[in-house]
C-alpha cells in the first residue's frame, strides 16, 4: 500500500545525492504515517469473542461516546512499529557516549530472566507465602547493593534516580523532624555542576537551594562548603564522581564538615559505574545515595525508562526509610508494608533481621522504626531488580571492579587521544568514567557544540551529552563505558579527530547543515514550543499535508 501520510506537500525530499523518490522513502529509510492515519476504528489485531448479552452494572457511568482509537491488524501493527524502530539509534547498534547516562551493553540474559513467569507473572499483593522467591531476590539484590556501597541499609522502592533523590531527601527531612530542626534547617547546598534533578528534588521536599561554586579544577573545595555551613543547613547534595567526570577529592572532608555542622550528606550516585569495587561511598561519609540500576547495572533505558533508583542509607538515616521493606526473622523474609507494623514488630526486639554484611551490629536491610511514609503503590521495580541481579551475578565482585576500571580507562583513552585538538575546561588531568570538553576550541570557527554533535550523526554516531554540565561552556561530555572494544573506541576517536580537522580547516559546510543523512534534518524546535501540537487531531492538517509527488 502506498502511504499517503507523513510527507510534505511539495516533493522536497531529496536523497543524499539530490534525487527525489516517488514515495519520499530513501531506500531502507521508510516514511511511516501515524496510527491515526493508517488505522481504522473497526479493525482490531486481537481476536476476542463478543460476550453473551448482559445487563450492565455500571450505574450512570456507561460510556456513550466513541473513544476515537484506531486499530491495526497484527501484520500492520508489527510493520508500523518495526518501521518506527528503524528510525532510532541504539546501543545495540553502536557506541552511545552520552555522558552521565552510562549507556552500556544490555545483556539479553537479563531480559530473559526478567520474563520468567515466576517474576513477571506474580501480583504484588499475593499472599507472601506464594512469593518467597521474589522476596529472596529483592533481599539478595539489597545485599549486593549494601556490600558494594558499604552502607547500612537500602530502600528499594524508588522508581528512578530522581525518585531516589526524593527518597533520600525525605529521609533527611524525617530525621530533621525527629530532631525538631526541620523548621530551622531549610538550606540544601548544591554545587553548580549538579544535575537538574538535584535542585528540583530539594525544592520539592520543601528545602531551599543554595548554590556552591567549584574551584578552578572543577571540584568542590571544602573551604567553600565550610563557608556556607551553619545551623540553617539541612544537607549537601553532591555528585561523586561529579558531572565533570572528576572524583571529588575533598569528599571525606566535606562529609565531616557537613556532619559537624549538623547536616546530612546526600550523594547523587548516578556515576557509581566509575568507582564500584574501587571505593565504598559508606567509607566516604555518605548518608544517602541513589543508585540508577538503569545506568550502573545495565537495565535497558528503553527510550526513556523505566529505571530503578534504590537508595542506600547510613545508620543515621536507615530508621527513617519508607515502607515497604524486608525483614528477616525466624519465619523467613517478611515484607513490611505499613509503618505501624514496623513499630509493632520492633517490640519483638531480637526477632529483627540479622546482620548479613556491613558494619558489625547493624541490621539489614533496616529496621525502619520511623518509616517516613510510602513512595509508590507497590514494592519498586521488580523487573529491573531481576535484570540488575542477573547482571551483578554475571560480573561478580571481580567483573564489577574490572568494569569500573575499563570504563575509566576508556574515558581517559579518549581524553588522551583528543586533548591536542579539543579543549578541556579544567585542564588536562585524569578523569573518571567520562571526559568533559568545552567549546573554547571552537571559538571563531563558526561551529557550535550543537553543530559538532549533529555532524557526528552524519558519521553514524550518537553524539555525546551536550550543554551539560552547565559549568562548562558549550559542554561535550563523553562517557564511553566499559562496553566498547578498542577498535570501536579508535574509530570514534578517529572520527572526532577528522571532524575537528574540518573545523580547523574552516569547512563549516560539514556542520551547519548537519545532519543531512539521518531520517530527519534538524527540527524546528521553536515552532514545536510556540504552537504546541501534542496530539493528533483530524483538523491538525495545519502542517504540510503529505502526499506523494506528482
Amino acid at each position, binding site marked *: 500500500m502506498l502511504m499517503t501520510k507523513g510527507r510534505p506537500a511539495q516533493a522536497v525530499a531529496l536523497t543524499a545525492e539530490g534525487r527525489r523518490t516517488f514515495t519520499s522513502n530513501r531506500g531502507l529509510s521508510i516514511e511511516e504515517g501515524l496510527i491515526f492515519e493508517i488505522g481504522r476504528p473497526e*479493525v482490531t489485531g486481537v481476536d*476476542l469473542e463478543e460476550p453473551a448479552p448482559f445487563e450492565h452494572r455500571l450505574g450512570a457511568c456507561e460510556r456513550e461516546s466513541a473513544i476515537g482509537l484506531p486499530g491495526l491488524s497484527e501484520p500492520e501493527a508489527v510493520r508500523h512499529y518495526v518501521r518506527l524502530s528503524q528510525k532510532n539509534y541504539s546501543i545495540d547498534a553502536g557506541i552511545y557516549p552520552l555522558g552521565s547516562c552510562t549507556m552500556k551493553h544490555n545483556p539479553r540474559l537479563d531480559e530473559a530472566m526478567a520474563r520468567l513467569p515466576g517474576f513477571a507473572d506474580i501480583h504484588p499483593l499475593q*499472599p507472601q507465602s506464594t512469593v518467597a522467591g521474589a522476596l529472596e531476590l529483592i533481599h539478595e539484590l539489597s545485599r549486593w547493593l549494601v556490600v558494594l556501597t558499604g552502607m547500612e541499609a537500602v530502600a528499594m522502592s524508588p522508581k528512578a534516580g530522581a525518585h531516589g533523590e526524593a527518597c533520600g531527601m525525605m529521609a533527611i527531612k524525617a530525621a530533621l523532624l525527629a530532631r525538631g530542626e526541620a523548621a530551622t534547617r531549610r538550606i540544601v547546598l548544591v554545587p553548580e555542576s549538579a*544535575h537538574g534533578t538535584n535542585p528540583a528534588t530539594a525544592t520539592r521536599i520543601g528545602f531551599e537551594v543554595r548554590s556552591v561554586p567549584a574551584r578552578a579544577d572543577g571540584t568542590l573545595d571544602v573551604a567553600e562548603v565550610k563557608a556556607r555551613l551553619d545551623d540553617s543547613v539541612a544537607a549537601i547534595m553532591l555528585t561523586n564522581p561529579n558531572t565533570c567526570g572528576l572524583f571529588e*577529592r575533598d569528599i571525606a572532608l566535606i562529609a565531616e564538615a557537613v556532619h559537624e555542622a549538623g547536616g546530612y550528606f546526600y550523594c547523587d550516585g548516578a556515576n557509581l559505574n566509575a568507582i564500584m569495587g574501587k571505593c565504598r561511598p559508606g567509607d566516604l561519609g555518605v548518608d544517602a545515595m541513589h543508585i*540508577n540500576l538503569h545506568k550502573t547495572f545495565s537495565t535497558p533505558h*528503553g527510550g526513556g525508562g523505566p529505571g530503578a533508583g534504590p537508595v542506600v542509607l547510613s545508620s543515621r538515616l536507615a530508621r527513617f526509610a519508607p515502607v515497604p521493606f524486608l525483614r528477616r526473622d525466624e519465619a523467613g523474609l517478611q515484607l513490611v508494608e505499613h509503618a505501624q507494623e514496623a513499630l509493632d514488630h520492633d517490640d519483638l526486639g531480637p526477632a529483627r533481621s540479622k546482620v548479613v554484611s556491613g558494619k558489625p551490629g547493624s541490621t539489614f536491610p533496616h529496621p525502619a522504626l520511623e518509616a*517516613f511514609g510510602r513512595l509508590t503503590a507497590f514494592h519498586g521495580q521488580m523487573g529491573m531488580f531481576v535484570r540488575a541481579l542477573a547482571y551483578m551475578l554475571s560480573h561478580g565482585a571481580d567483573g564489577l*571492579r574490572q568494569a569500573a576500571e575499563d570504563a575509566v580507562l576508556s574515558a581517559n583513552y579518549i581524553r588522551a587521544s583528543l586533548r591536542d585538538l579539543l579543549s578541556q575546561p579544567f585542564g588536562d588531568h*585524569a578523569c573518571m568514567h567520562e571526559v568533559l570538553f568545552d567549546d573554547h576550541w571552537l571559538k571563531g570557527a563558526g561551529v557550535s557544540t550543537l553543530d559538532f554533535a549533529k555532524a557526528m550523526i552524519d558519521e553514524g554516531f550518537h553524539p555525546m551529552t551536550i550543554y551539560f554540565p552547565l559549568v562548562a561552556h558549550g559542554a561535550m561530555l563523553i562517557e564511553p563505558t566499559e562496553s566498547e572494544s578498542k577498535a570501536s573506541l579508535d574509530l570514534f576517536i578517529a572520527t572526532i579527530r577528522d571532524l575537528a580537522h574540518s573545523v580547523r580547516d574552516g569547512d563549516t559546510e560539514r556542520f551547519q547543515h548537519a545532519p543531512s543523512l539521518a531520517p530527519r534534518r534538524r527540527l524546528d524546535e521553536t515552532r514545536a514550543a510556540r504552537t504546541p501540537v501534542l496530539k493528533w487531531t483530524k483538523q491538525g492538517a495545519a502542517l504540510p499535508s503529505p502526499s506523494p509527488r506528482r
Partner: protein
Amino acid sequence: MRYLPLTSEDRADMLARIGVGSIDDLFAEIPAGMRLGDLLDLPRHKGELEVERLLRGLASQNVTAGSVPFFLGAGAYKHHIPASVDHLIQRSEFLTSYTPYQPEIAQGTLQAIFEFQTQVAALTAMDVANASMYDGSTATAEAVLMAHRITGRREAVLSGGLHPHYAEVVRTTSRMTGDEVVTLAPDVLAREDLCACVTEATSCVVVQSPDVFGNLRDIAPLAARCREKGALLIAVFTEAVSLGLVKPPGEMGADIVVGEGQSIGNPLGFGGPYVGLFAARQQYLRQMPGRLCGETVDAEGRRAFVLTLSTREQHIKRDKATSNICTNSGLCALAFAIHMTLLGEKGLRRLASINHAHTIDLADRLETVPGVEVLNETFFNELTIRVPGDAADVVERLAARGVLGGVPVSRLLPGQGLDDLVLVAVTETVSEADRAAFVERLEEVVRC
C-alpha cells in the same frame, strides 16, 4: 568476562597512550585510606548457565498468576498481552536507546510517544497527555502538587475510595512540604459526601473510579462543586481497561486525570515497572510534570516529532521546575501504545465487555454462597465481598487450595475494622472453570 571487550593487551596499549603506568594511577584522587585493596566480599563472576540456574531457582518458588485461578486486582491486573507486544518492545532500537535527546535519530521513539499521548488523551477525553509517569500512584502525587501550583492553595481532599497506597504516597509528599491533606474514611459503599468537603481552601479533590472497592462513581456533580469553589478535580483510575466501557473522566468534568496504565501491555511483574498516565485540560499545560512530545517540521519541511516545552523541566528550570522527574516509563508506555493499537476501539470495547460480563457472572455465582455477600451496587471488573471471619485467613486458605482468590482489604487498610472484606477482580484471563473453582473453594473454606 563475556561483557568486557578489552583484552589485557588493549589495556596495556591504552595505558601507554594515556601515559600512566597502571590503572590505579587513574584512581589516585580517591583518598588513600579509602581505596579498596581487596575484592569485596561477594561471589566471583558466573557464566550464563549458572546465573540462569540460580534465578530460575528463585522464580520457581513463586506461584504464578497463570498457573491457578487468579482474582487479584487492587491496582494491578492480569490481562492477556498479545505476543507481538513483547516482541516489538524488545527491538534493539526501542529497548536500548536513551531518552530521545537527538530527535533526528530518535523519530521512532518520538512518534510512538506522540501516538501514546494521543491515545491517552482520547481514552480519558482530555485535551493533553504527557509521555508517562512512573506509575499511577506517583502520577497522583504529582497531580496534587500541580493543583497546588495552579490554585495557590495547599489543601487536598482525598476520597475514601482512593487506593490506600495512592493516598499514602500523596500524604508522604505533603508531609514533607507541610501541605494539608484531608483523607476521608474508607468508603466501601461509595456513600461519602465529597461535595461537602470542598471549601474555599480546597486546592483539589482526588477521587477514583472505579474506586478501590470496585464501585463506579459519577463525578459530574463533584466537578460542578469544585468549579464553584475554585478547586480542581483530579480523577484517578487504576484499571485502564474500564475506560472501554465506562464514561471517561474528561466528559464528567475532571481537570486532571491520572491513572495506572499497567493493564494495557504490561505484565503484573510483582508491582513494577508500570506506567503512569497523566492528562489535563489545555489551560494547565504549562504546569504539567514530565516530558511532552510535540509535532513540528524539519529543515526540509517534513513532519517530525521532538520533546518540547522543556522550560517546565528540571534540566532547564532546576529548582523552579514543575517536577523532578527525568527518566519515566518509556518502554512501558510503548507496550501500552502497541497493545492499544492492536486492540483499537473495537478491541478495547470488547475486552472491557468481556471483563464486565465475567465479573457479573462471578457476582451472580457468589450470591449463592452462604455467608458471602457482594457489597457493590455498581462495578466494572472488581468487587468487594464480605466473608465470614478473617478475610486474610480466607485468602490464605484459598491459596492453600490452589486459588489466588483476591486481596484482603486489611492488607491495604490494617486496623480499620475492615477485616472481613476481600477485593476480587475478574478479567478476560479468568475462565468459566476458574470462576466455578473459586466459588466451590470459597464455599469449602467459609464452611469450615
